[in-house]
C-alpha cells in the first residue's frame, strides 16, 4: 500500500487552498496530474544550471543539456520496455502521436476502400485524425461498440476486424468509463489479420505497468502531463521497421542528415521525427516524473488506485439518484464518471468547487460515447497516488449538499 501521507508531502499544490480557508481536493487527475517537487526541481535546476540547445553545440553546456535530454529518453524507453531508445519519439502530447502516424504512415499506406478500426469509447485524439485521413483517402472507419457494462463488445470482432483493416487503433483505458481494455489480446487479433495496431496509452502508462514488447503493439502514444510530468512533452513509441519506413512528419533542423537546396536526406531515428528545437526541459521533467513513479512502483500504484476506486464507487453509490458509468472496479482504472438525477453535471462541478473539490464536467473529449449513452455530459472524479479516502468522503458529502441545494 502506498504511504499517501508521505506522498502528499511531495506535491506542493496539495497544501494550497482553493479558496481562503478551503483546502484544495484535486480529483481531476485524468485531465492532467499535479507535479511532485522532484519534477519541479529537476526543471528548475536545469534552467538554473544546464540549459543550452541540444545536438548542436560543441561547448560544455550543450553537451550536458544533450546528455540530460537523451538520458530522459532512455528513462522512457526503460519505463515502457522499448527495445531501444531510438524508438521513443518526443512529441508535445499523445494527440500529436496520432496525428503523426495518420499523417506519415497513414498517408503512405491507407488507400481508398481500406478500413480503419477504432472503438466507440475513443478520446477525440484517437478519432479525429483518422476521420481526416479517411476523408482524404476514401477509407472507411469502423467501430467496436461498447456494451451496457461499458466494456467492448467483441462478439462481432471477426466481422469488424478483417483483411480489409489496415489500421486498428484503440485506447488501453477509457478516460470516461475507466474501462481497461484487453490490450494484448486486441493487438494479437489485429496482427492476425495483418493490421498495424496503435494503442492510446494516455490513461494507462500513468497508472499501470506497460510493456510495449509484451503488448507487441506497433505504435503507442502517451502524454507527460498526465503522469506527474510537465505539459508540452509526449511520447510516440513505434516498431523500428515501421518508423524507418515512414516519411518525416515536420521538416526543419535536427531531422535532417544532409541538406541540399533541392533535396535533403533524413536523420536517423528518433530525430527524423523531431524537427526544430525540442521541449528540452519538459523531457527532463518527464524523466524525473518517471524516476518518481518507478520509485513508488507501477504495480503498487495500480494496486492503490484499485483500492481507492473501489472505495469511491461504493461511497458514491450511497448518494441517492447518482449513476456511475463504467465497469466494476476490478476492470476499471481510477476514474468515476457519474450523473445525479435532477442536477446538470456543470452545476455539480461548480458547486463542489465551492468546497475546494476539482472535478471535471462535460463530455471529456468523448462526444460519441456520451451520445450513445444518451446524455450530453457527465461529471468525473479521477484519482492518483495522492488521493485519500478522506478526500472521497468529502466529495460524497459535497454531492449530498448539491442535492439539498437542488431540493432533491
Amino acid at each position, binding site marked *: 500500500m502506498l504511504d499517501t501521507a508521505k506522498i502528499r508531502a511531495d506535491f506542493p499544490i496539495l497544501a494550497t487552498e482553493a479558496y481562503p480557508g*478551503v483546502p484544495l481536493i484535486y480529483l481531476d487527475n485524468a485531465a492532467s496530474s499535479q507535479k511532485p517537487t522532484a519534477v519541479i526541481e529537476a526543471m528548475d535546476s536545469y534552467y538554473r544550471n544546464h540549459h543550452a540547445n541540444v545536438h548542436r553545440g560543441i561547448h560544455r553546456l550543450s553537451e550536458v543539456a544533450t546528455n540530460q535530454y537523451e538520458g530522459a529518453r532512455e528513462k522512457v524507453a526503460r519505463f515502457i520496455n522499448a527495445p531501444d531508445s531510438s524508438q521513443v519519439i518526443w512529441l508535445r502530447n499523445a494527440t500529436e502521436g496520432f496525428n503523426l502516424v495518420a499523417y506519415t504512415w497513414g498517408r503512405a499506406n491507407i488507400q481508398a476502400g481500406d478500413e480503419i478500426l477504432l472503438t466507440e469509447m475513443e478520446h477525440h485524439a484517437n478519432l479525429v485524425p483518422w476521420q481526416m485521413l479517411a476523408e482524404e483517402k476514401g477509407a472507411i472507419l469502423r467501430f467496436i461498440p461498447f456494451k451496457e457494462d461499458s466494456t467492448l463488445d467483441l462478439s462481432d470482432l471477426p466481422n469488424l476486424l478483417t483483411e480489409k483493416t489496415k489500421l486498428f487503433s484503440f485506447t488501453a483505458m477509457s478516460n470516461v468509463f475507466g474501462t481497461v481494455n484487453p490490450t494484448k489480446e486486441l493487438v494479437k487479433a489485429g496482427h492476425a489479420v495483418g493490421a498495424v495496431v496503435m494503442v492510446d496509452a494516455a490513461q494507462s502508462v500513468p497508472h499501470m505497468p506497460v510493456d510495449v514488447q509484451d503488448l507487441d503493439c506497433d505504435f503507442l502514444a502517451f502524454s507527460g502531463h498526465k503522469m506527474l510530468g510537465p505539459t508540452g512533452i509526449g511520447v510516440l513509441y513505434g516498431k523500428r521497421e515501421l518508423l524507418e519506413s515512414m516519411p518525416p512528419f515536420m521538416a526543419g533542423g535536427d531531422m535532417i542528415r544532409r541538406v541540399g537546396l533541392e533535396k535533403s536526406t533524413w536523420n536517423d531515428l528518433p530525430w527524423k521525427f523531431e524537427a526544430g528545437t525540442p521541449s528540452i526541459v519538459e523531457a527532463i521533467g518527464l524523466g524525473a516524473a518517471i524516476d518518481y513513479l518507478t520509485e513508488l512502483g507501477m504495480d503498487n500504484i495500480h494496486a492503490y488506485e484499485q483500492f481507492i476506486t473501489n472505495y469511491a464507487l461504493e461511497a458514491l453509490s450511497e448518494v441517492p439518484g447518482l449513476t456511475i458509468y463504467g465497469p466494476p472496479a476490478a476492470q476499471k482504472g481510477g476514474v468515476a464518471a457519474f450523473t445525479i438525477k435532477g442536477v446538470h*453535471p456543470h452545476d455539480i462541478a461548480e*458547486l463542489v468547487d465551492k468546497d475546494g473539490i476539482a472535478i471535471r464536467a462535460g463530455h471529456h473529449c468523448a462526444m460519441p460515447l456520451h451520445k450513445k449513452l444518451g446524455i450530453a455530459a457527465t461529471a468525473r472524479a479521477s484519482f492518483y497516488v495522492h488521493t485519500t479516502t478522506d478526500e472521497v468522503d468529502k466529495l460524497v458529502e459535497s454531492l449530498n449538499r448539491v442535492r439539498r441545494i437542488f431540493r432533491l
Partner: protein
Amino acid sequence: MLDESFYREQIIDLYENPLNHGELDPNDFSYEEDNPLCGDVIRIDVRLDDEQRVAEVAWSGDGCAISQASASLLTEEIKGMTLAEIKAFDKDKLLELIGVPLSMARVKCALLSLKVLKSGAYGIPDKGVMRDEG
C-alpha cells in the same frame, strides 16, 4: 464552505418551473444552437405581431441550471420588444437579470440563450456576433 447564494433561490425555482417553456409552430423565427463544450442546447421560437414586436416566445432545450434560468429570464424580458431591440439586447443586461456572479465557463452557459435569440433574429446563423463575448 458552500456559497449557497450562488444558486439563488430564483435560479433553482426557474430550473424547476421554467417560464415560457415549449415550442411555437408556426413561428416567425426559430433558432437552435448548442454549446459544444458542455452539450447545452437551447431553441427559441418567436411569433411577431403586426408591428414586428414579440407577441409570443417559447424556448426548449437541455442544460445546466444557469443556461435554463437564463432562457426563462430572457424570454420573459423580450416580450413586446421589436426586432431591432432584440438585436441590440446587451449581454450585460442578461447577466444582470441572472444576478449571480458567474465564472468564465458559466458565462458561456448564461449567454447561450441570447446567442440563439440574436442568431434567430438576424435570420442567419450569425456565428461571429457573440463568440468572443462568451
